[in-house]
């Protein structure tokens, strides 16, 4: 892992946040203008997400952590969804469960996704995520939450910072 411990402030969203919430079709014309696209990330689910994520990045030492409920990222295969979440400054994602394509896409973008009981984390809590042992310490509440581990094959991709850097380095799938 490039960085074993990530710190940041929880930004909480609910269940069933679809890729149409994260980056809806009405912004399809901005998909080749990623900085502009990223300004609209999650705005239908949580208005003001992008500026708030920026503010949190400046305010604390870590990067904001997107904390979601069930079935995060259901819907489209658009990798722009985790990409603009990452561009907004988010350093990691915690969710109760995550849709299949979104999970792969986030890891392929070098954005860690850990599954855990996110009901125990409140919006604005300060978190310390240990990727190696799969725990999240909520330093605001003092609670420690156990996460499921990232599967080894995805961990190997994450270690390289995503799938494209992985391919650049290995030239093939070395699983």
């Amino acid at each position, binding site marked *: 892992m490039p960085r074993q411990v990530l710190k940041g402030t929880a930004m909480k969203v609910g269940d069933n946040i679809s890729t149409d919430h994260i980056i809806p079709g009405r912004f399809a014309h901005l998909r*080749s203008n990623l900085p502009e696209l990223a300004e609209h990330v999650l705005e239908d689910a949580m208005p003001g997400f992008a500026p708030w994520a920026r503010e949190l990045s400046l305010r604390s030492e870590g990067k904001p952590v997107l904390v979601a409920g069930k079935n995060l990222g259901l819907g489209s295969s658009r990798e722009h969804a985790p990409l603009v979440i990452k561009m907004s400054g988010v350093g990691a994602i915690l969710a109760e469960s995550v849709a299949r*394509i979104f999970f792969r896409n986030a890891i392929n973008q070098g954005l860690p996704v850990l599954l855990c009981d996110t009901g125990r984390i409140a919006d604005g809590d300060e978190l310390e995520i240990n990727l190696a042992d799969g725990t999240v310490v909520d330093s605001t509440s003092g609670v420690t939450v156990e996460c499921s581990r990232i599967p080894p094959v995805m961990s190997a991709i994450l270690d390289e910072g995503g799938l494209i850097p992985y391919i650049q380095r290995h030239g093939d*799938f070395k699983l």
Partner: protein
Amino acid sequence: MGKTLAEKILSLKSRGDVKAGDIVVSDVDLVFVQDTTGPLTVRQFKETGCEAPARARQTILFLDHAAPSPGKELANDHDFLRRFAQETGCLVSEVGEGVCHQLVAEQFANPADVIVGADSHTVTAGGLGAFATGMGSSDIAAAMALGKTWFRVPETFRVELSGSFRWMVFAKDLMLYLIGRIGADGANYKALEFGGTSLKRTGIPERLTMANMAVEAGAKVGLFPSDKITRDFLTDHGRANRYTPLHPDAGADYERVISIALDRLEPMLSLPHTVDNVSPVTEAKGVKVQQAFIGTCTNGRLEDLAVAAGILRGKKRHPDTRLLIAPASRQVLARAIEEGHIASLVDAGATLLPPGCAACCGIHQGVPADGEVCLSTANRNFEGRMGNPAAMIYLASPATVAASAIRGEITDPREAI
């Protein structure tokens, strides 16, 4: 131990003896992107350092989501994809040819193929027995570069179908029922494998609709075995030589078996804002509909337009209900013209849109207003899906949408004839 369809195909394509849970590197027979995922994929492909796709002629760039382009940015994205195709020998499916998934079924997909597309409804080709799944642009860029990808071999939910649909009940109603029963994440990471005695009466168009919606339960693939119906379809589409027998083994290991008697189903509806928010049409009758949309990779095929035309023939859409029709492909449009369906629909007051994704994905061609209800034959009703988060999207079969367009409100198609 017997093998499921997913285990069989991935064993073949990874040249191994694999079972659910294994990680495999699989050959890929077809790779594709569409116009809203393609530009990012192409940029990532270029970053891999590869000069050219591993198999350019099996790499297709579909211009379907924003076709014809509604603005200069998307026009430039189309131009970018066309240039990449000229440089590398990849194929372009032009504006007006139709939705990628319909064209993959008409022209490319075969039993036991592995197909990956930068679009979640790539699963559609499972109707022809292809292990077909949607991926993001990094994975598709890697598959373009290497001609292969990695998979975790999925566990399988067997969907065992018996009996026949009753009048005015269709494959779409079955899928809405199934997704309502197991939930929008009920089959997350799993393969859905369809089987049972009903398959001998289930045509390819219905199989494509069913496979298409597998992803709305979270599934990685929606798979059908191959049979005479598959072979006849391939023969009709000039690929008789690509037929391969494909069946799960007796004794295959299924994580779950879901049995559904088709003759017990009724017309179903998905209510805003998740696909698994399902009820029988009868329980939501009377909801006013401002826009009725028939089309998409789920229900824009000839058989769908024929059902809608049969209901609308000689009738008129309700004056307060706009009726939009988008055939899934040029071939669908041509045949629907030949068979008189388009004339019936247009006479009934329908607006004919070009073959493509049209109003489904919120880019253009039918964005609903604040507070409006759109009743659609598409596969998704997420908040904001059709371009306006303040609109409500209901999903139903073409028959239910056509019947509702006449009355201007959600209508049981059994009552509109």
